[in-house]
């Protein structure tokens, strides 16, 4: 994907990328001649595809860390998936630069409120108590139940109502 500043007939250059908001990242490009900026939005699927390819918008100066994709993206992993016995120090001076490399690129800071459905704090707390390996499926199912029944906010009561539809307890 390339961007052209039509006024200057000049290729725009990557300037910045935001952290994902509700699964979507925003990349900013700038014309090096007139400094006009444009924003490109990646929808959640496009963002996820980029994440799956382990590619960083804007590139990365940090050296790739062993199994950084698996370690950052496997949701059903052991809490102590790997013991860090690396004695080298990262450029930032930390023991393991891996976390910052990934979080800088893709960590989604937004609340789980996709597709216009909001979660109350109480419902979010209950969602967090669902075992991690079934949480995504449960979350998707509850949101689907809420939408199917015309709710725009997921409360503890709606979770109770949806419970009968799922094998997981929450």
């Amino acid at each position, binding site marked *: 994907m390339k961007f052209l500043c039509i006024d200057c*007939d000049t290729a725009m250059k990557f300037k910045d990328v935001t952290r*994902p908001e509700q699964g979507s990242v925003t990349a900013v490009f700038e014309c090096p001649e007139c400094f006009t900026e444009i924003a490109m939005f990646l929808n959640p699927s496009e963002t996820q*595809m980029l994440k799956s390819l382990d590619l960083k918008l*804007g590139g990365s100066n940090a050296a*790739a860390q062993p199994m950084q994709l*698996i370690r950052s993206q496997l949701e*059903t*992993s052991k809490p102590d*998936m790997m013991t860090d016995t690396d004695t080298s120090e990262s450029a930032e001076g930390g023991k393991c630069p891996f976390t910052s490399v990934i979080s800088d690129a893709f960590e989604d800071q937004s609340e789980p409120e996709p597709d216009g459905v909001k979660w109350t704090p109480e419902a979010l707390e209950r969602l967090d108590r669902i075992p991690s390996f079934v949480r*995504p499926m449960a979350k998707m199912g509850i949101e689907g139940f809420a939408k199917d029944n015309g709710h725009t906010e997921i409360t503890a009561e709606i979770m109770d109502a949806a419970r009968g539809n799922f094998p997981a307890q929450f």
Partner: protein
Amino acid sequence: MKTYKELPKDAGSNIIGQVTAQANRISTRLASVKYTIAIMSGKGGVGKSAVTVNLATVLTLSGFAVGVVDADINGPTIAKMMGVRNTSLEYVESGVKPATTSLGTRVISMDLLLSDDDAPVVWNAHTQKDAFTWRPTMEVGALREFIGDTDWGELDFLLLDLPPGSDRLPNVVELIPNLSGVVVVTIPSDVSHLIVKKSITMARDILKVPIIGVVENMAFYVCQHCGEHEQLFSADDTSFQQITLGKIPFDPKLSLCNDNGTPYVHEYPKSLASKSISEVSQKIQDFFNI
């Protein structure tokens, strides 16, 4: 106004550089591996993993340095079958240290990373909806890291246990363009042969990967009482005869060994099945003139 081709190749993300770096990680790692072999079938349930485990064990017992990649990301069984499920992987500067069996075979598997017995592989995503669009890419990425980021050390053989499906080998060849060869596992049934033929065509004619040969698993059953050989399956098709590496008889003890994490060929070295697996191992060595 400039056209697409007149613009610089990259706006600053250096995507080509990032992809090249990923490929380089694999080629650098595999520089210390003499032979990389994919164990495949196309058909499910024919015993690819059991053949892989026992082949790896025979080669290890023969004095070779052997690594096994469980390339079945969603159905990993190798760690259990090789008795290393409880290994905590160690992350060091040079990569991730593989699990090592009591005999010395090195193993990497998704099973070593999952939280519980009943935990499937679920990838972090804002939503799991439409995961079919990106999940296969994530799985190839995981396989790339298994091969390239595991600190294998010097290896004579790296065996990749592929999941079913003739579409799997192309992914491996994308990652390892100079794959040494494939061993194809089948059972003596026409249904299995039907699928295996497609896999062989894919490997030999489309991907141009050397076919080391075909292993016929569960070829027959030895009666525990009279010693007679009984057929479990029967195939009219004889198209693999010229490239058959060996015929492994069905032995219920092999399944028990898989469950116990004790490679069968080590537990029962004098059994008929172990002898067949040893013959397969020897023919693979002959293929590479070792």
